[in-house]
């Protein structure tokens, strides 16, 4: 997480970190390698619920990294992320879905291969970001935040009314993914690896893992490149940036483009994870959840965004699943908190506490422990692995995680 440059407190530790870098980067490398291996073999051991949750998390990670580029790295507050997610998800569903009708609702679809749908989804989301960027580039800080709020509501309106494409209020089913004839479904072709049948959940897991890794890798490289440095300068001081020769307007536009492309991809993954899209999945609350992810993880840190995405997106699903075991959390109408409510309380509280006490977020915790002279292993990094493996103890089969309805 050395790329996170965020806040002033961290500036002090940076110098000391640079001197101790070689040893730490090796530990870091080992941790990453172990994590990767664990993630790769997880589908052989882990039950379906966790694989599906994992896929939802991978999708959220992509979206969170994208938002973090915009908010954390460049300092442009955006509440429009849900809108760009929606553009990606709808484009995918429209391009790859079949025409047809459910009852009186006539649905249009182009029926093109899902890969084309995915690419079109990403491109259209990017285009939407690009179209919004002239506004974005003119507005500063908080004005942008509220203007982008408008996009979410306009998006909701379009989703509800443009029935032939979006399915209207009730939404429409998203086509399953396939890649050159290989279907990410329960069969076609049947697939066994090491005696484990690879069904939809297992296949999607690898798809999500691959895309999330690619998104992570791209963002890290971007931040270390010349444009990445330019974006960080832009956050710290627009004047300084323009004096250094950074074209402020153009960079703001570009970061909006990249961020919304990330969001579009995340939206496609979301559609695949839920299996359908509906307006309620792309409301203001979703934007706020993504904001919570990057604040919790640490503004400006790619790894932090991934961690934040893990917590915020998996929490309601896990709460729902273990409602009867967890204290305070009960099923709907049984007293106690519903899973969605409990999750919302927790992440609302997390936002407040993080900003009050640890502005660098989860990504800043290892540095804080190091300052106190404790073990620098970075316990936080191994968290996803722990979450994935600890699940093998339960054996109840499960359905798709119902994200939209969890709230």
């Amino acid at each position, binding site marked *: 997480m050395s790329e996170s440059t965020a806040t002033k407190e961290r500036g002090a530790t940076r110098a000391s970190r640079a001197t101790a870098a070689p040893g730490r980067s090796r530990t870091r490398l080992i941790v990453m390698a172990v994590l990767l291996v664990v993630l790769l073999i997880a589908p052989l051991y882990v039950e379906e619920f966790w694989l599906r949750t994992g896929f939802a998390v991978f999708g959220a990670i992509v979206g969170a990294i994208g938002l973090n580029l915009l908010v954390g790295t460049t300092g442009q507050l955006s509440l429009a992320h849900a809108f760009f997610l929606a553009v990606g998800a709808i484009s995918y569903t429209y391009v790859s879905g079949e025409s047809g009708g459910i009852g009186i609702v006539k649905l249009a679809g182009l029926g093109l291969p899902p890969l084309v749908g995915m690419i079109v989804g990403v491109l259209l989301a990017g285009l939407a970001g690009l179209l919004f960027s002239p506004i974005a580039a003119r*507005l500063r800080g*908080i*004005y942008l935040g509220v203007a982008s709020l408008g*996009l979410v*509501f306009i998006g909701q309106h379009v989703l509800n009314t443009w029935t032939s494409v979006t399915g209207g209020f009730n939404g429409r089913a998203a086509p399953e993914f396939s890649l050159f004839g290989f279907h990410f479904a329960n069969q076609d072709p049947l697939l066994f690896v090491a005696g484990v049948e690879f069904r939809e959940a297992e296949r999607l897991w690898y798809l999500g893992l691959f895309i999330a890794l690619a998104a992570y890798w791209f963002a890290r490289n971007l931040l270390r490149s010349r444009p990445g440095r330019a974006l960080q300068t832009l956050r710290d001081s627009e004047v300084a940036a323009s004096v250094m020769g950074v074209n402020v307007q153009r960079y703001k536009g570009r970061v909006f483009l990249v961020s919304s492309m990330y969001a579009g991809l995340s939206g496609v993954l979301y559609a695949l994870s839920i299996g359908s899209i509906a307006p309620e999945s792309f409301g203001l609350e979703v934007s706020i959840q993504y904001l919570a992810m990057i604040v919790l993880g640490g503004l400006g840190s790619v790894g932090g965004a991934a961690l934040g995405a893990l917590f915020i997106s998996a929490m309601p699903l896990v709460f729902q699943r273990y409602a009867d075991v967890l204290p305070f959390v009960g099923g709907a109408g049984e007293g106690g908190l519903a899973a969605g409510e409990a999750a*919302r309380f927790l992440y609302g*509280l997390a936002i*407040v506490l993080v900003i*009050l006490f640890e502005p660098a977020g989860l990504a800043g915790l290892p540095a804080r422990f190091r300052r106190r002279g404790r073990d620098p292993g970075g316990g936080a990094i191994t968290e996803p692995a722990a979450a994935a493996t600890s699940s093998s103890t339960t054996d109840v089969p499960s359905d798709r995680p119902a994200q939209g309805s969890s709230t």
Partner: protein
Amino acid sequence: MTQFLSLLLNGISLGAIYALVALGFVIIFKASEVVSFTQGSLLLLGAYTTARLSGPLGFWLAALAGIVVTALAALIVERLIINRLRGAPVISLAIVTIGVDIILLTELIRRIGSDILNVPHPWGGKSFRIGEVGISQNRLIATLVAGLLIAVFFAAFKYSSWGVAMRASAEDGETAALMGIRLGRVSALAWMVAGALAAVAAVFLVGAPTPGVSPSVYTVSLRAFPAAILGGLDSTGGALAGGMLIGLTESLAAGYQDQLLFLGRGFGDVVPYVVMIIVLLVRPSGLFGTKELTRV
């Protein structure tokens, strides 16, 4: 013509309510440089308290209690959180208020559940007619009260020592502090006033023609956001103008929705945001906002 006039009248009354909430945003922003996303749930808190207490206490006491509770809640938020974060980046401050908003809103929605709580306004749901043009009495009273409150506020802002202190600290916090103005107190008061204004708006917002207190009141309050922004976040007069503009366009768009059908049903709900984006395209700091100058 009658339809137009009555839409106009309703738009103005709606605009007056929006202006109250928008004024809250502006006061808070001027005093503490925070864009408070908490305003929506504070509004709902005011509505909820009033509705719950109006059974045992009667409407007037309940409304008073609602206003006091909301102002206190705003004060607590300011003291516990915002005050500790003085000097933090604007974005962090906005995000922290979003966090508070999530917590408060979740609790309120949980308490309200799927019920619609009624607030028994003494003036009931009757409507007031001038010839063919009609408006609900609730909205008419809301317009008058809002107008009165806004006038009082402007007077206080201009002449009272609190108003002077607040304008001074908004102008240049450091100099104001050196002159002996207690920024913390100014900011705390601003939050309380904003909370109280939101609660007053809430009391009227849950009366006719709206059915009562339900979580959807919150989304109505979110439309005051564009009002504050398009007027200019640091302009009190702008909040008033923005509120009126949003109220009128929303009322007209909803009223002529049959003619606007190509934009889809329910376009009235989004029109505030469309107006906001258009205005911001032309004037990035709102209609009456101070242009940000950068000196190198």
